[in-house]
């Protein structure tokens, strides 16, 4: 029994917990390799034009896994990670989208993840969807707990980065969805490029919950997209505390939530004196153009000091 996990979308948020979670099953886990040109092109052929880049990338990974003869795909239906907040609507329909474009050859394991339900109901949902493959129901409960603590430890470790004192280099917050920030292929190694330009980078994951909550207090109405709220919270925190030298917002073209979030952030930053750059990614982006813009941005940060 082989279960495939696409290295796309929420993989980048939950990879510490993922393999732990599946330890309770008899299955062999196959994680697709990093995004590359071939995967993206395969994804493009499977998707509607208007679908956002991260979903096209996901479809590429799904195809790769299908070619590796997996028996099932692990693709939870992510509804909500906290009470009264959602992720973007595409995650709600994602398992159905994949099923509809793959045909019926591969089973899609899609337990519903709705953390506003409470642990017991989530456990029952896990039992229902992974039932036949489980070693033992108790093993699932244990792996639930292990996954939870591993994820928490990982997040705390990332958040500790923020507390470290700033060196002499410039500090830039690179804010966006994890699948845009940590997939080096689709963002042309954005983080690495910034680091070689001598810039220290912080991502949303490096901000503590407290920092994000503090920033989110400046919203006129609470945002109902979990990740969008984190991005805005981190950006507003930077503004409140003057915590960084510059902010870069990364969004994918056609992303519904980001189209409004970017607007809210840009308006707040326009008078604030912290430089902001926004980058929109799609399959037509150009690496050279992006690097030129990054260079101009970091030059500007240094120039501001000199004047």
């Amino acid at each position, binding site marked *: 029994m082989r279960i495939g996990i696409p290295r796309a979308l929420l993989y980048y948020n939950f990879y510490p917990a993922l393999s732990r979670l599946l330890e309770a099953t008899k299955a062999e886990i196959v994680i697709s390799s990093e995004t590359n040109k071939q995967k993206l092109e395969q994804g493009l052929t499977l*998707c*509607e034009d*208007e*679908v*956002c880049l991260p979903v096209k990338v996901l479809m590429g990974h799904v195809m790769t896994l299908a070619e590796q003869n997996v028996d099932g795909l692990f693709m939870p*239906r992510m*509804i909500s990670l906290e009470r*009264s*907040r*959602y*992720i*973007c*609507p*595409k995650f*709600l*329909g*994602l398992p*159905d*989208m994949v099923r*509809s*474009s793959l045909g019926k050859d591969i089973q899609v394991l899609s337990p*519903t993840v709705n953390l506003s339900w409470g642990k017991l109901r989530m456990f029952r949902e896990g039992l229902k969807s992974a039932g036949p493959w489980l070693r033992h129901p108790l093993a699932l409960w244990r792996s639930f707990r292990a996954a939870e603590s591993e994820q928490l430890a990982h997040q705390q470790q990332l958040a500790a980065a923020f507390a470290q004192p700033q060196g002499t280099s410039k500090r830039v917050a690179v804010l966006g969805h994890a699948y845009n920030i940590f997939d080096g292929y689709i963002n042309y190694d954005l983080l690495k490029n910034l680091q070689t330009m001598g810039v220290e980078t912080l991502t949303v994951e490096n901000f503590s919950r407290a920092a994000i909550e503090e920033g989110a207090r400046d*919203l*006129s*109405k609470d*945002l*109902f*997209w979990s990740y969008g709220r984190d991005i805005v919270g981190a950006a507003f925190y930077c503004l409140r505390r003057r915590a960084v030298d510059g902010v870069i917002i990364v969004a994918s*073209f*056609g*992303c*519904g*939530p*980001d*189209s*409004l979030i*970017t*607007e*809210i952030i840009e*308006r707040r930053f326009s008078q604030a004196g912290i430089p902001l750059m926004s980058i*929109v990614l799609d399959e037509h982006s150009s690496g050279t153009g992006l690097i030129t813009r990054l260079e101009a941005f970091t030059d500007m940060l240094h120039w501001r000091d000199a004047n």
Partner: protein
Amino acid sequence: MKITFPHLGYCSIPLRTLFAELGHTVIVPPPISQKTISLGTLHGPEFACYPLKLGLGNFIEALEAGADTLIMGGGIGPCRFGYYAQVQQDILRSLGYEFEMIVIEPPLGHFRQVVAAAGRLKQKNSWMQLAQAASFALAKLRACDDLHQLSLKIRPRVENKAVLANLYNRALTAIDAADSHRTLKTVANRFQENIKALPQTRVEPLKVALVGEVYLLAEPAANLAIEEKLGNLGVEVIRHVYISSWLKVNILLDFLRLRRKESAEQAARPYLNCFVGGHGQHSVGETIQAVRDGLDGVVHVYPFTCTPEIVARGIMRTYAAEKNMPLICFSLDEHSAEAGFNTRLEAFVDVMQRKNGQGELTDEQALHGI
């Protein structure tokens, strides 16, 4: 208070009634024009959806006309509509307008805000008077919806389309002017009869399900008058999503925590087993129902970059191809060109006719501009 609100098809009629009954001055924004679209796209976020931009354009024109209180709907996600009001407010303030914005959130989860907003709007009226005004406004909305549904059925059959268009517009004006339940009923019935009495051909028209996002379905300025165009091409448009039904399901039933028992959502389950925001699940369900009911085609309209409808679209395409059902999807925004739109629509009607074995076009259809 000089109250205004964004346009949504003929919803300005019940809304004007509601606020006028409560004693407010109502400033209805000018009908959506090229100017409205330009204002909305100039000041709105580039990648935001079309309804946000059009609403913004409406607000700017109404503020210029002297409005000082803006009424806007809210939401709890995951669709973007729930955050329109905040973004529009930020933009309008930065343009230097002074106004108050009253956001009507869905009562589930925001009960206190809703009561507070209603309290502000009712002024010195009693709660009873507010309920009466609301019920009169709802009666007008239903009268408009009924009239509209009749026009969709009659338009492909009626010989003189221009007379029908004229009657339809006069009926809307009369409904708008009605000042009591009684006059409303009289004028609504009279126009229904007049429309039904128009001379009709006996040819059975093609039937198309119009599915998609509710704003794009209800606002002819946004959907390039797709219903009228299809009707004039001799196609009967069948549309299930109306504002009155939407209010009933999304506001009332959700508030009372009654389970949704909508047939379209049930039908969609095997293919899209989850609410995805907006009307995504409806669009899939209605496509499935259209195949089951033996309709001739499905037309899908939604604003460019509308995530719930894009999720639906992929699934609908696979399904329609499997069932050999003609399907055309229009994702519309300020860049939609009318000439190209008309051509695609006409080609689609051609496809349905050929599939239906009608082959050549009738003289009448040729006359009406295919």
